C-alpha cells in the first residue's frame, strides 16, 4: 500500500511520531549530517549520506553484556542486555544503511541470538529515505542494494516532485502510518505511483558516477589472493580502524572487564580486524601481516560474508574510502582485482574456493540465560600436571545444569570474574556428568589468575561450544593420536570415549611429545591407557630424560614402525599449525588420506558463537564450524591461522 505525504506536512508528521517515541532525524551540514533528536526544526534533507551508519543504534560502541557481584563467597550474575534501551524511531536512513541493518539482523539474530542486539533491534524503527543523488564514492547500485531501500527498513519515503510516497514494510511501519493518519492518505493511483518510483530509481541509478560490474567478484577474488598489487594498495594502512568503524556491516567486538570493588561488568566494545592485535597471539605471533590484514577486510566484505550468509558484505556506501587517512580505496582495489583476474596466469586458489551455504551446526549452544552470560561453578580440586599446567575439577553451583548437561562440542569458555575469559578444550568424555575437568596452561592474565586460585574458588562457565571429534564416524578403524605438550588435553575427550568402547576400534597408538619430560601432561592417564590391550603409548622428547622411557627426537621418526593399517587409520593431531603440517605430510606419504587426519585449530576463539569475529579464517568461524577440521579442510583455508 502506498501512502502520500504532502511535502509541507513532513515536519508535522515527524512531530506526531516524536510524541510516541524518541525520534532522531538528520541535522547538520555537508559531510557532517548526523542523526540527532528531533527538536521541532525541519530536518536536513540535503545530504548524500549520514556521517555514520545506523549500526551504532543497534550495536552500541560500548555496551554491558552482564554484571556480577561477589556476595557471601559466591557470584551473582545478571544479564545486562536491554538495560537502558529506549524505543527510538530513526528517520532518513539511506538504502546502503538499511541493507546494513538487513544483514546485521541476519548476522546477530540468525542463529545463536545475540540478546543485546535483539533488545535494541526490537526497540528501533527504521525509516528509510530513498536517494535521489549519489556521492563520488557511492556504489550501492553496483552491489544491487540501492539506491532505493529494498530491505532492512520499516517504512520508506520516496521524494517525488510534489509529494513523498510512503510505504510500510513491517508492523512497526504500519504503526507509524497509523500514528500519522492525519497527514498520510492512501495514494489514489497505486500502480501508477509504483511505476513512477521504479522509473525514478532507474534514473538515479544511471546518474551514479561509479558503475561497476561486480557479478563475478567472488571468482575474481579467488584468483587474486596472492596478486602483487596487494602490497602496493594495502601497505599504507596504519591500523587506525576508521574503515571498520564507519562500515554498516562490521560486527566484530572485544570484551573488557570493568571492576569496582566486589562488583563488575563485562562490556563489549567495537573491535576491528584492522588492528594488529586482533589476531596477534600470546608470544607475538601474528598470522596476519600489515598487508594481509588490509586484504582480509576486502575479502570479508566482498566474498567471505556473502559465502557464509548469502548476503552482500559490502553495501557500497563508500564511507571507508572517505575516512581512510592513507587513501586506501576499496574502489581502487576492485579495479586492481578485476585487472589482475583477467591475466592468463590468474588461477583459482584452493584456499579461496569455499562453498559454504551456511548451515546451522547440529549442536545448538546451551544458553541458560543469554549468549554471553557465564554460569557460576566451583573449583573442587586442582592437580599439578606440569610446572605450568594444572588440571582443574569444576562443578556448576546449580546442580540442575549437570543433570541436564548434554555432552557435545569441543570447548568451554572459562571466566575469572573481573579478569577475563579463556577458551579451554574439553578433555573429558560423555560419561562424566557430575563434574568437569580441564587442563589449563599458564600463559596469560586469566590463566595466571586461575593457577593462583584454590579449591572452593568460583569461576564462570559458558559452553560447550564448537564441533567435536567425529567419534561415531571413526569406529572400526585404527587410531593414531598425536599430542604435543598440552595439545593432548583437547584430544583426551576422544581417547576417553574410545577407551570406554575399546572393542569397537582397531589398534590404538597414542604419542605424547614435549621438549622436556616435565612438559608431558596427563601422564597418569597415559600410563593407565598403556595397560589396555591393543593400546600403545609412545613418548618423544626433544631433550633426553632419565625419568621416562622416551624417544629423543621428532615423533615423525617413529611413524613408519607403528604397524598401523594406514588405509584404515584415523589420525588425530593436536599441535601448532606448523607441526600439524609436518606430521601430516609424513602420514600422507605413508598412504593416509587428508580427510582421515583430524586436527583442532584453536585460534582466538572468544565468544564461541561466531559473533565477535576474532577466530574467523576465510568464511569459517573456528568456534562454530571448528575447531575440529580434517587436514584437507585445513589446507583449503586461507593461510591466516
Amino acid at each position, binding site marked *: 500500500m502506498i501512502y502520500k505525504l504532502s511535502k509541507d506536512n513532513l515536519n508535522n508528521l515527524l512531530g506526531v511520531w516524536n510524541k510516541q517515541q524518541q525520534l532522531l532525524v538528520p541535522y547538520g551540514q555537508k559531510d557532517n549530517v548526523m542523526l540527532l533528536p528531533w527538536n521541532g526544526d525541519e530536518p536536513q534533507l540535503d545530504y548524500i549520506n549520514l556521517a555514520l551508519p545506523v549500526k551504532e543504534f543497534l550495536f552500541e560502541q560500548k555496551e554491558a553484556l552482564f554484571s556480577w557481584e561477589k556476595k557471601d563467597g559466591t557470584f551473582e550474575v545478571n544479564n545486562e542486555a536491554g538495560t537502558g534501551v529506549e524505543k527510538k524511531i530513526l528517520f532518513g536512513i539511506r538504502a546502503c544503511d538499511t541493507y546494513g541493518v538487513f544483514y546485521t539482523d541476519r548476522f546477530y539474530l540468525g542463529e545463536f541470538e545475540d540478546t543485546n542486539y535483539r533488545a535494541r533491534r526490537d526497540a528501533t524503527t527504521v525509516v528509510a529515505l530513498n536517494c535521489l543523488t549519489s556521492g563520488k564514492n557511492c556504489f550501492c547500485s553496483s552491489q544491487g542494494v540501492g539506491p532505493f531501500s529494498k530491505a532492512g527498513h520499516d517504512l520508506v519515503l520516496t521524494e517525488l516532485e510534489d509529494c513523498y510516497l510512503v510505504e510500510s514494510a513491517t508492523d512497526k511501519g504500519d504503526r507509524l502510518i497509523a500514528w500519522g493518519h492525519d497527514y498520510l492518505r492512501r495514494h489514489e493511483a497505486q500502480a501508477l505511483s509504483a511505476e513512477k518510483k521504479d522509473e525514478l530509481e532507474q534514473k538515479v541509478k544511471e546518474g551514479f558516477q561509479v558503475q561497476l560490474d561486480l557479478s563475478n567478484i567472488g571468482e575474481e577474488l579467488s584468483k587474486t589472493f596472492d596478486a602483487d598489487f596487494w602490497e602496493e594498495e594495502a601497505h599504507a594502512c596504519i591500523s*587506525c*580502524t576508521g574503515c571498520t568503524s564507519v562500515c554498516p556491516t562490521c560486527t566484530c567486538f572485544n570484551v573488557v572487564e570493568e571492576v569496582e570493588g566486589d562488583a563488575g561488568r563485562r562490556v563489549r566494545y567495537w*573491535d576491528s580486524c584492522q*588492528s594488529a592485535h586482533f589476531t596477534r597471539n600470546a608470544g607475538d605471533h601474528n598470522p596476519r601481516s600489515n598487508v594481509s590484514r588490509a586484504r582480509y577486510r576486502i575479502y570479508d566484505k566482498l566474498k567471505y560474508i556473502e559465502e557464509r550468509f548469502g548476503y552482500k558484505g559490502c553495501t557500497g556506501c563508500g564511507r571507508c574510502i572517505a575516512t581512510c587517512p*592513507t*587513501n586506501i580505496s576499496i574502489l581502487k582495489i576492485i579495479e586492481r582485482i578485476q585487472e589482475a583476474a583477467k591475466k592468463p596466469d590468474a588461477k583459482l586458489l584452493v584456499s579461496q574456493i569455499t562453498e559454504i551455504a551456511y548451515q546451522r551446526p547440529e549442536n545448538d549452544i546451551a544458553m541458560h540465560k543469554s549468549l554471553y552470560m557465564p554460569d557460576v561453578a566451583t573449583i573442587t580440586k586442582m592437580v599439578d600436571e606440569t610446572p605450568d599446567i594444572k588440571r582443574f575439577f569444576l562443578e556448576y553451583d546449580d546442580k540442575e545444569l549437570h543433570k541436564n548437561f548434554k555432552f557435545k562440542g569441543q570447548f568451554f569458555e572459562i571466566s575469572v570474574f573481573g579478569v577475563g575469559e579463556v577458551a579451554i578444550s574439553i578433555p573429558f568424555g560423555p560419561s562424566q556428568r557430575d563434574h568437569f575437568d580441564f587442563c589449563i596452561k599458564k600463559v596469560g592474565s586469566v590463566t595466571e589468575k586461575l593457577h593462583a586460585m584454590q579449591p572452593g574458588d568460583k569461576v564462570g562457565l559458558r559452553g560447550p561450544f564448537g564441533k567435536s571429534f567425529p567419534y561415531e564416524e571413526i569406529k572400526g578403524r585404527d587410531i593414531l593420536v598425536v599430542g604435543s605438550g598440552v595439545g593432548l588435553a583437547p584430544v583426551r575427550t576422544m581417547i576417553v570415549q574410545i577407551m570406554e568402547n575399546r572393542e569397537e576400534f582397531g589398534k590404538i597408538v597414542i604419542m605424547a611429545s614435549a621438549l622436556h619430560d616435565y612438559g608431558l601432561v596427563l601422564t597418569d592417564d597415559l600410563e593407565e591407557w598403556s595397560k589396555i590391550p591393543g593400546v600403545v603409548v609412545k613418548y618423544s622428547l626433544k631433550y633426553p630424560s632419565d625419568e621416562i622411557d622416551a624417544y629423543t627426537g621428532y615423533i615423525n621418526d617413529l611413524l613408519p614402525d607403528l604397524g598401523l593399517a594406514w588405509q584404515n587409520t584415523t589420525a588425530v593431531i593436536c599441535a601448532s599449525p606448523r607441526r600439524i603440517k609436518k606430521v601430516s605430510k609424513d602420514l600422507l606419504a605413508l598412504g593416509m588420506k587428508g580427510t582421515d587426519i583430524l586436527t583442532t585449530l584453536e585460534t582466538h576463539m572468544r565468544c564461541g558463537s561466531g559473533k565477535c569475529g576474532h577466530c574467523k579464517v576465510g568464511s569459517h568461524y573456528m568456534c562454530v564450524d571448528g575447531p575440529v577440521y580434517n587436514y584437507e579442510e585445513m589446507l583449503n583455508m586461507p593461510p591466516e591461522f
Partner: protein
Amino acid sequence: MVATRVFEAKEKGASLYVVDPRRIRLAEFADEYAEIEPGTNLAFVNALIHIIIEEDLYDHKFVAERVENFEAVKESVKDCTAKWAEEITNIPAETIENIARGFAGADKGSVLYAMGITQHKTGTKNVASLANLVMITGNVGREGTGLNPLRGQNNVQGACDLGALPNVLPGYQKAVDPATKEKYGKVWGDFSCFDGNKIPEMFDRIDEGKMKALYVMGENPVLSDPDQQHVMHCLEKVDFMVVQDIFLSETAQYADVVLPGASFLEKDGSFTNTERRAQLIHKALEPIGESKPDWLILAELMQMFGYEGSYENPSAVMDEINTLVPQYGGITYERIQDVGLQWPCPNLDHPGTQYLHKDKFIRGKGLMTVTPYEEPGEQADEEYPLIMTTGRVHHHYHTGTMTREVWTLDREYPGGFVEINKADAEKMGLWDHQMVKISSRRGSITAKAVITDNIKEGVVFMSFHFAESPVNKLTSQVVDPVTKIPEYKVTAVRIEVA
C-alpha cells in the same frame, strides 16, 4: 592528518621526498627516500643549498628582493657538495642531488618537519638551514609552500602564543622589555617580569637549591625529559610541587598537591592549531569527580593569591586576550564559532592571515643564517656502538598518560620495544620479540626487540611512551644552546640479551 594532505597532493602529481633514519610509512610513497644518519641534518640541508646555488636553480628574484645575507650563506656552503654530505649523512650523493633538483624545480615546495629537526644539539640551526632552503627557492608566503613545523599537540601553538614560554608574555612580547611590563601592568597591576628558566634549566636550579617550588601542568617530565635519574632526583629534592593533570601521571606521584584537570571533552574554550587557527571547543560532558577546567583552576588560584580581577568564563579570558595580544586582537568567540580564524588578526574587521610573510617578512627582509655542520653531542664508540633515536608510534601519544588508559590503543603497542635492523640483530644473535637490555652512558632499560628492515643499520629506534621502558633514562643532557631542547634523537647505546 597532515599525511592525508600529502597523499592528496601526491595524487595530484606532487613529488614527495622523505628524509628519516626510519623507513616510516610515508617513505613507501616517496619519490626519493633518504635514510639519514641521525644528527646530520645540517650536512644534508647545506648540501641541498650548495647544489641549488651551484647549479643556479635558486629563485634570483626572490633572493634579490626579499632576502639578506645570501652571499654569506653561499660562501659558507661552497664546499658542501653532495659527495661531502654522503660521507656524513650516509645518503647517496645521487639521492641528495635528485632531491635538491626536484625541490628547486617545483613551482610550489613545502617543507614539513617535526622533532627530527628540532630535538638536536643543532635544533635551532637545523630550522634556520631549512629557512635558508625555502628562501632561496622562493617557497615562502604562498599557498602550498613554506616551512611548516608540525605540532605534536593540538594546542602547543596556542600555549606558546599566550606566553607559556619562560621569556615572553602573551603575544611573544619580551618579558625584559619595560614597555611590555608597563602595558600588562595597566591590566594586571604590579607583577615581576624577567626571563625565566627553560625546563632543563629548572631542574638544574632545583638541584642547585635555587628553585624551591615547581608547578607542572599537563606535562610528564619523569618520562618525557632527558636523563630520567636527574629529573627524579630533582623532583624528590624540590620543596613543594604541584601537578595539574587529567590523570595521575608518573610525575604526579612526586607532587605535594595534585589538581585534577578536566579533559577537552569537559570544558569550553579555544585551541590554536599548527596553522595558527584559533578554534572553539565545546563541553560535551560535565567534568568528572573533583576535576575542573584548567582556566578555572588558574583563575581560582589567582584569586587566592590576591588578584582582584576575575573571569566568568573562557570567553571573558578571550576578551582580555583581545586587548593585550595584538595577533589575537580580532579573534573573538563570536567570530570563531564556525571554522576559526588564523592569526595575525589584529582587529574585528581583519579576515585573519592565511600565509605568513606573504609579501613581506615580519622583520622586513628574510635573514639567511650561516649554519655550518656540527657533529651531534654523542658519538657511537666501541662500548656503545649503536645510535638510538627516539620518537612515537601511531597508537600512543607522548608519555601515554592518556593513550595507555585506552585498551584498544594500548593493545596495539602494549609495552616498550626497540627496533633493530636485521643485519645488526643477526650480528648480535637476537630473535624477534626477545627481551633485550639497552644501555647508554646514563643507565639501562629493557624492552622487546623488534627486528625490521625499516631502520638503518647501526641505528635503533625506541619510543618514549612506556613507563616500564623509560627511554629517557638513556638520553643525554646535551641540549640546543638557544632553545634548550634536548638532543633526544642521538644517543649512543649498547644492546644485549636481557
